[in-house]
């Protein structure tokens, strides 16, 4: 074979060992422990700051393991180990603040929670009197619900148009382009727009929950369109053709075959879109306003919402400030809990609606 001529030392290649020297399996753990120990020494004995010690420990880990590997295993393994070390350190670095955020939230938010916190409003509450977020919960639920009722039909129908009817024609392309543009609307601009729109109809100084719902819809529609569009595209054309071949009209094919097939994905997308807008603050600040009392009417007067409540509880905590801050943390915890429940719900619904494959 020609290779034999090319290869100056064929025998060597033949003997190329499978068992190159390797680091013991516990090597990464060992280096990690050593690095942590060094960081610990820096922190506890030499009094460096936590951040610096952690940073040094990370650097030591990322440098030491590949160096050791290079000495024992050769450069390719060293690079492999370097990357592995880097991605794990990246994970840690990104997770530490995220965990800190959740921890802070639990730590400061939990003390605020009580039955009254959920059933009381802030009406006539000042100082350290017992207040609650009931009014903001009601507002958030109603406004988000209204935004969903506006966005979901528009979003899903638009996606249907794009995938089933438009399919590449110029109108569809334009709409796709515009939906992209819409995803770029900063939330505060959506709020300003909703305010200007409602001033046209209801006069200056208008505040109503429905305005907030409109502002949120502007943020929500593109998300719904995008996710639904993706899901509809995933439905294989064979299914549609199978339905057409049975003489089913197009719209029934869509409602009976295409939508059910992609239902789990659509529901998931919608729920995630809700989770995305339920925490919006800036637009609601402008158009839904702030009140202390419960308001069930979307079309009249101000409506409190959780994000706005959090914002004002922080910026205007009142005198004394501590209860205000505590309520802000408590409300933030509740808001996150709602968002998380929605996320989990989305997954469950997604699973429940998913076509049963028998696996």
């Amino acid at each position: 074979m020609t290779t034999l001529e090319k290869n100056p030392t064929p025998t060597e290649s033949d003997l190329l060992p499978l068992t190159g020297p390797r680091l013991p399996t516990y090597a990464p753990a060992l280096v990690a422990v050593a690095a942590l120990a060094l960081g610990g020494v820096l922190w506890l004995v030499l009094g460096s700051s936590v951040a610096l010690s952690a940073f040094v420990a990370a650097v030591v880990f990322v440098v030491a393991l590949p160096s050791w590997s290079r000495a024992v295993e050769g450069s390719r393994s060293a690079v492999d180990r370097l990357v592995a070390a880097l991605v794990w350190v990246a994970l840690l670095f990104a997770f530490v603040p995220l965990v800190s955020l959740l921890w802070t939230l639990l730590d400061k938010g939990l003390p605020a929670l009580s039955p009254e916190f959920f059933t009381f409003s802030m009406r006539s509450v000042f100082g350290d009197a017992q207040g609650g977020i009931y009014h903001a919960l009601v507002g958030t639920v109603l406004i988000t619900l209204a935004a969903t009722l506006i966005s979901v039909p528009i979003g899903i129908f638009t996606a249907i148009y794009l995938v089933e009817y438009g399919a590449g024609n110029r109108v569809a392309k334009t709409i796709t382009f515009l939906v992209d543009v819409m995803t770029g609307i900063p939330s505060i601009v959506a709020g300003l727009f909703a305010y200007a729109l409602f001033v046209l109809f209801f006069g200056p100084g208008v505040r109503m929950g429905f305005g907030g719902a409109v502002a949120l819809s502007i943020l929500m529609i593109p998300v719904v369109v995008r996710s639904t569009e993706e899901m509809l595209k995933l439905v294989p054309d064979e299914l549609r053709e199978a339905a057409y071949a049975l003489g089913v009209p197009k719209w029934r094919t869509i409602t009976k075959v295409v939508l059910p097939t992609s239902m789990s994905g659509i529901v998931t997308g919608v729920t995630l879109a809700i989770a995305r807008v339920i925490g919006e603050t800036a637009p609601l600040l402008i158009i839904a306003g702030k009140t202390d009392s419960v308001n069930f009417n979307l079309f009249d007067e101000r409506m409190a919402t959780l994000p706005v409540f959090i914002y004002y509880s922080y910026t205007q905590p009142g005198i004394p400030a501590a209860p205000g801050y505590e309520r802000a943390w408590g409300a933030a915890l509740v808001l996150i809990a709602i968002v998380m429940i929605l996320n989990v719900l989305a997954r469950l619904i997604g699973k429940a609606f998913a076509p049963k494959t028998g696996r």
Partner: protein
Amino acid sequence: MSSTDTAKPRPPKGEPPVKRRSPERPGDKIFKGLSFGAAMIILVALAGVAIFLTVEGIPGLGASGGAVAGEANFLVYAGRLVYGTLLAAVIALIVATPLSIGMALVISHYAPRRLATPLGYMIDLLAAVPSVVYGLWGILFFGRFMGDIYVWLEANLGFIPLFSGPAATGGRTILTAGLVLALMVIPIITAICREIFAQTPTLHQEAALALGATRWEMIRYAVFPYAKSGMVSATMLGLGRALGETMAVAMVLSASGTGVMTLNLITTQNPNTIAANIARSFPEATGLSVNVLIASGLVLFLITFAVNFAARAIVARSGKRLNA
């Protein structure tokens, strides 16, 4: 296209019962009308936003003096804000992109499945944490933590212009804002990258492994080339979010008016971002100042749009290349 899609066989003339035989056809028409109408609503809404921004913003373009916070004219005013907006977003991306890719790799390729699944869930949850919560945490916890680091940076790395100080011991600097933004976009970039990494065809990954590639070489040869465009667009989407983020920056950042144009990241003198400036100044704004703020909103809108559009274009182009 309406003519082709709704074209239906004409019933023979003079036979009314035939018409009644196909009750679905009106359904088709209605359904198509509904979906077309929904698409049109988007068009109208967007036109509304654009008209509103332009009509309300144009008077602001010619403003000077007090309405533009004492700057020479709108361009200078907007320029400073754009600088701050971009600086914060760039900081966020520089920090977030490598971390996100690392995290996504851990989830898709490094972690055992038992760990990877909960990690993935957690990332998705974090992507939905409201910005006001990030703001609260950033100001009451993270800022103070960073303050100590800034003091250290000034003392030890002060010779680098970025850290020349004087350090803001409260930590409410553009760097802190950028880092909080980074935290906010990490889940977004990670989630998208993870999806893309997971979609890399096993065939290609196995091909690389069968050639004797190490895990990293396999990722470099089989995963990254495949995922490159997706990674770019994920980053761009993260950039879009970082640019438009309002409340977290407004709460964390200590900036006055339009801020200062400086590269010094750790002082008390900080650039301001467009969105934060709107949120902060809108309540006290009257008359022409409102127009100026809306005009700056228009500028932000254009920037984020450009970023989003670039992301889509990159994805579309590489998608074409892969399919070709």
